[in-house]
């Protein structure tokens, strides 16, 4: 075990994957200089070397800022024997390559009747909550959940980031990983051994019995903090981190709701057609009888992301907002407890 940051864990997974399989290559913007600390063993080349030194310029390549051909070429390379990991910097830049994601990456295996294999991972960082304004702050995973053929991971901890990324590189399906910049500073003990976390298997981040909070990405630590605060009020909240949105661990969510009878979904994406909307719909369709209160979503309101800290901070799911939502779904409880 070693203490790793979120980015350090991603770097460790990338190094393991590069060492394990020569078909793994890393292409993207600024990957050679290890700008984000995910393509080197340490913080600098002097420290423990970087991937350019370790693996050579054939397997790690800086690209031009040309998202459309980066994504399409990675797909074409994946269809012909490589297993690329693509660094697209920020998630707001994915739209530049939307045609390639939607029409090529997601569809080629299907429309060619299974002839195409698509072992490629697209990494991007959701740079929200950091005062970069509307062109860097998107959390666009729900848009991609709407595209059958893609798999989507949203790791919320360093150890999950490492284990999920190893699985992603092994998969023969295209994976988009959305890394949350608000989590970059997280540090925890992470195994230095190779391990893989399967897709479609969520994690119970905190056990509880009164309400289920399904939390996504940076909403996970906020939800855990909310649950801890609620404990003092006698409320026992279970926090579930699905870890991957496609495939989604529906059974874990339904099982929890069956026990608690209440659901809050905390999702940093926009409210309309967000991941929270989909999870809410599934629970409403399949566990309606278990519900003792309406489902409440805590999501980012349907506005664009403003620059000023005075404006931006209020928008994302916070521990206070999540706790308030839990109190709302438990609204009838004090009366019952009082025997009224």
């Amino acid at each position: 075990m070693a203490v790793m940051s979120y980015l350090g864990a991603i770097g460790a997974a990338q190094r393991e994957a590069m060492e394990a399989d020569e078909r793994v290559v890393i292409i993207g913007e600024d990957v050679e200089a290890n700008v984000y600390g995910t393509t080197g063993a340490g913080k600098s080349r002097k420290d423990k070397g970087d991937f350019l030194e370790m693996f050579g310029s054939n397997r790690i390549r800086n690209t031009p800022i040309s998202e459309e051909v980066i994504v399409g070429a990675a797909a074409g390379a994946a269809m012909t024997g490589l297993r690329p990991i693509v660094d697209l910097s920020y998630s707001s830049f994915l739209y530049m390559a939307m045609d390639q994601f939607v029409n090529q990456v997601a569809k080629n295996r299907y429309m060619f009747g299974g002839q195409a294999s698509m072992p490629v991972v697209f990494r991007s960082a959701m740079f929200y909550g950091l005062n970069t304004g509307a062109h860097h702050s998107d959390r666009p995973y729900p848009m991609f959940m709407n595209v059958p053929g893609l798999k989507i991971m949203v790791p919320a901890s360093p150890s999950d980031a490492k284990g999920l990324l190893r699985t992603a590189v092994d998969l023969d399906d295209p994976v988009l990983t959305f890394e949350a910049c608000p989590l970059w500073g997280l540090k925890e003990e992470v195994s230095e051994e190779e391990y893989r976390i399967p897709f479609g298997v969520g994690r119970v981040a905190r056990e509880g019995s009164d309400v289920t909070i399904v939390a996504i990405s940076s909403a996970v630590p906020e939800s855990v903090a909310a649950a801890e605060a609620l404990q003092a009020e006698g409320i026992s909240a279970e926090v579930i981190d699905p870890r991957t949105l496609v495939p989604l661990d529906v059974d874990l969510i339904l099982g929890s709701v069956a026990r608690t009878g209440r659901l809050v979904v905390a999702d940093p994406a926009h409210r309309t057609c967000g991941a929270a909307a989909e999870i809410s719909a599934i629970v409403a369709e399949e566990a309606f009888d278990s519900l003792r209160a309406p489902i409440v979503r805590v999501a980012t309101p349907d506005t664009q992301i403003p620059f000023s800290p005075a404006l931006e901070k209020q928008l994302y799911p916070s521990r206070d907002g999540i706790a308030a939502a839990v109190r709302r779904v438990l609204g009838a409880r004090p009366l019952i407890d009082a025997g009224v």
Partner: protein
Amino acid sequence: MALDRETLLQMQRRMLRIRHFDERASKMVKRGQIPGTVHTSIGQEAQVVGACMALGDGDYMSGNHRSHGHPIGKGSPLGPLMAELVGKGTGVCGGKGGSLHLADFAVGSLGESGIVGSSIPIATGAALSAKVLGNGRVSLAFFGDGAANQGCLYEAMNLAGSWDLPVIFLCENNQYALSTPAHTVTSGVIAERAAGFGIAGVRVEDGQDVLAVYDATRTAVERARRGEGPTLIEVVTYRFHEHSEGLRLGTDYRDAAEKEAWLERDPIVLFRQHLVADGVATDAELDALEAEVIAEVDEAVAFTDASPFPDPSVAFADLYTEPTPLRVAATLRGAS
């Protein structure tokens, strides 16, 4: 480049396969036997076959919406292609692609794209994999004059030029993007755009001459295999049919005299004359070759007719590697 008799006759055979395959497909569209939309390569056979035959068996290519000819030119058997056009389970894509999305990985055909220009980055990526793996393969992207104005082409040319990727960008300039004359929406000469990226560019003025296209492509393939990077080839050609089969436009966007002049330059007739004049084959031998091809197309149609449509459950296969729980499918199945 001097080619042996077998290769020359193979060129004629593949051009004839495309012609008769597409003529049959055109008839089947009119009879309602092929659903959806179909774009034929009739008139462009020399350009397709000249390029495909300059590639090796292990080389890759990507296509576009007008792409029946590409896998045929690379050697695909006709039966699974025709079955795909009809939507049969024995189709080369199991009935999930259709005319717009043929692919035959067995011959290096990485697939057509119904999105104009969208497969150019795919072919570029195949060249990247060839370079990284060092397997000596090259990749060729077929696209039209319409796609020549898509941004992804220039992103791809820049990347391929920067990394010396073994890729050929082959523009099939049939002079019209549906009804829009290319010269009215295209600034400058397409082939000359290569210069801006420091890569080789060549224009084949007579795309009805299969040998001219072959020579230009062969030169580009050899350059790519030597590690000297990409080439942009623009081939000037003409489609003999309408943009898509059954399409009836109220405007004659193509000048009658222009059309007549190009129809006179049928690439299959021209090459046949060349083969006879050069003593490569007699008229009788070429008649026999054409009869064989017609029989092949008949067989492909018979294979198609005898093939079953896919089971409805196939709609849920091949989206991911199996097994991946597909919730939508489960719900649908449960409800039915």
